[in-house]
């Protein structure tokens, strides 16, 4: 596995595809995020599932399923049957192990795959969640086209993602690092909505969760400063870059406060 700094370097050179799954598994990143890979935590995942109409026995696709947290939550709390598709093979392995440990391996399964060509048949799932990952995809239109293809008629997808604008992002938030942090490549709310409509989906309910992303940014900023004070082992390899990271986090906090950066749940339905 390459190191986080290798991956940042690769990003700076534009080698983006597939980086992020591994990057998000780095000890430094998981320490900073405290295991919470998207704003709002489990509560917001359950809200997204509700908007997507997930219930007992629903067959749900989780796009970019990471370490499997969402899939396990939906199986455990809602009795759903979940398929997780994830780019990183290590994450898939880990998620599968976690499912076995939780005794949920009958209800959830994980496979490696690319959002640009989902390894699922047409019209095969009752609901799709795509949490804080569309912003990372370079080719968002193709990914949403794939989502539309595998949804059965009448079923819904919920995109949970970072939104930007109105107003331009501050320059430091347009960098490679900000792209990995889901910000630089995020769209405005109506940008996501347009992509969903272009894929032939009907827009449903959208809701803003600015407080959730503000809380997440606050926690990351505080953890970076705590790491600078306490010399947290996971962050020590990046000691020289902490000041810059803290500044970036604070710029992000301000952009959230200024309503340039936000977070939204966006539901869309495949027509019957």
């Amino acid at each position, binding site marked *: 596995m390459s190191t986080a700094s290798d991956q940042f370097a690769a990003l700076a050179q534009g080698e983006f595809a597939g980086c992020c799954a591994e990057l998000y598994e780095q000890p430094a990143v*998981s*320490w900073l995020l*405290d*295991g*919470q890979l998207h704003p709002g*935590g489990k509560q917001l995942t359950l809200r997204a599932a509700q908007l997507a109409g997930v219930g007992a026995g629903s067959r749900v696709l989780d796009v970019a399923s990471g370490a499997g947290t969402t899939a396990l939550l939906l199986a455990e709390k809602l009795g759903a049957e979940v398929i997780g598709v994830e780019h990183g093979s290590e994450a898939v392995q880990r998620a599968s192990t976690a499912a076995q440990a939780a005794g949920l391996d009958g209800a959830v399964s994980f496979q490696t795959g690319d959002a640009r060509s989902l390894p699922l048949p047409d019209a095969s799932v009752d609901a799709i969640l795509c949490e804080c990952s569309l912003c990372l995809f370079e080719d968002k239109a193709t990914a949403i086209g794939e989502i539309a293809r595998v949804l059965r008629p009448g079923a819904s997808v919920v995109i949970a993602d970072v939104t930007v604008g109105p107003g331009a992002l501050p320059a430091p938030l347009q960098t490679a690092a900000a792209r990995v942090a889901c910000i630089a490549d995020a769209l405005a709310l109506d940008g996501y909505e347009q992509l969903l409509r272009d894929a032939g989906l009907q827009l449903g309910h959208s809701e803003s969760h600015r407080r959730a992303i503000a*809380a997440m940014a*606050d*926690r990351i900023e*505080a*953890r970076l*400063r*705590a790491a*600078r*004070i*306490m*010399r*947290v*082992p*996971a962050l020590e390899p990046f000691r020289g870059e902490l000041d810059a990271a803290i500044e970036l986090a604070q710029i992000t906090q301000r952009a959230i406060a200024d309503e340039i950066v936000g977070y939204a749940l966006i539901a869309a339905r495949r027509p019957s």
Partner: protein
Amino acid sequence: MCFADSGSGHQADGFSLTLERVETMLDAFVAAEGDPEAVQFSGGEPSIHPQILEMLAAAKRRGIRLVMLNTNGIRLARDPRFAPALAEIGIHVYLQFDGFDDATHVAIRGRKLQDEKRRALDRCAAAGLSVSLAAAIERGVNEHEIGAIVRFGVEHPAVNGVFFQPVTHSGRHLDFDPLERMTNSDVIAAVAEQLPEWFREDDFIAVPCCSPTCRSATYALYDGEDLVPLPRLVDVEEYLDYVTNRAVPDLDIRQALEGLFSASAAGGTEPTGERLDCVACGVGLPLQLQEVAAKGFMIVTQDFQDPWTLDVRKLMKCCVSEIVPDGRLIPFCAYNSVGYREQVRAELSAQRGAAR
């Protein structure tokens, strides 16, 4: 345990406890608590009792982990042997420290004291004693000094915490307008307003013990330049959820948070590393802090009840008891609000009169 009636041990009807009596009270406390966490000697002014060191040592000898001396600091300032003697026993100093303005001291304590407070603190630092500042906050008197008290404490090497106490209107403070009382929320708002670079209101957590409206606290890391409130590092609400609706509470986290913010906690009584390991239980803070020169700092605001606010349901959950000379443990706010204080004073004064 209180050493004298509120006001002064020198008053005509004041009383003092004997070492023997204190040992009996401590035995009663240990018997009641089993594994007692903390005891505070307060007054009056306990430091002027001729046997105070023996009494404090008696508490330590009984295995009470945190033994605190609540003092005005005058003896610490004037007697160079006192701070080293307390350090040797292992005492935590709870120093009354209400602010910096002359007017504040005169209004709350009746005299100017700031020079002696600073000398006391410097002697504590030299002796290696850890100190909590205890600030009585009264609206219109010293609420504007809340931020300055925190900053002073954070920056002073001996100080590991500040305890704010909105002034209660029992005992000698009866004459006031109940609609103008200071509350925990007022103190927290003042901290955030006066130190916006360090704290926000939501850095404070309402602690379940005694009752969430009794006490709010935060804990911060400080390295001489930057300060980070610890609650920002974790989703505290998620971990405090057990109070209201967890069917199966996560005991590790519960213990970590209760230990950090409980009524018996005082800033700096354990090494910072130990404390952080504690709050880190299960929440991903792998720390090796022994080599780190960071200091942990605690801010607590504790709204004691008075006759205007007394709530029996809160008394039933009380975690702060007054040990009275006959060995009873009385909820602190009941002691001060419903006549126990006066009763104890009358009994002890009568005994002393008879012994003369």
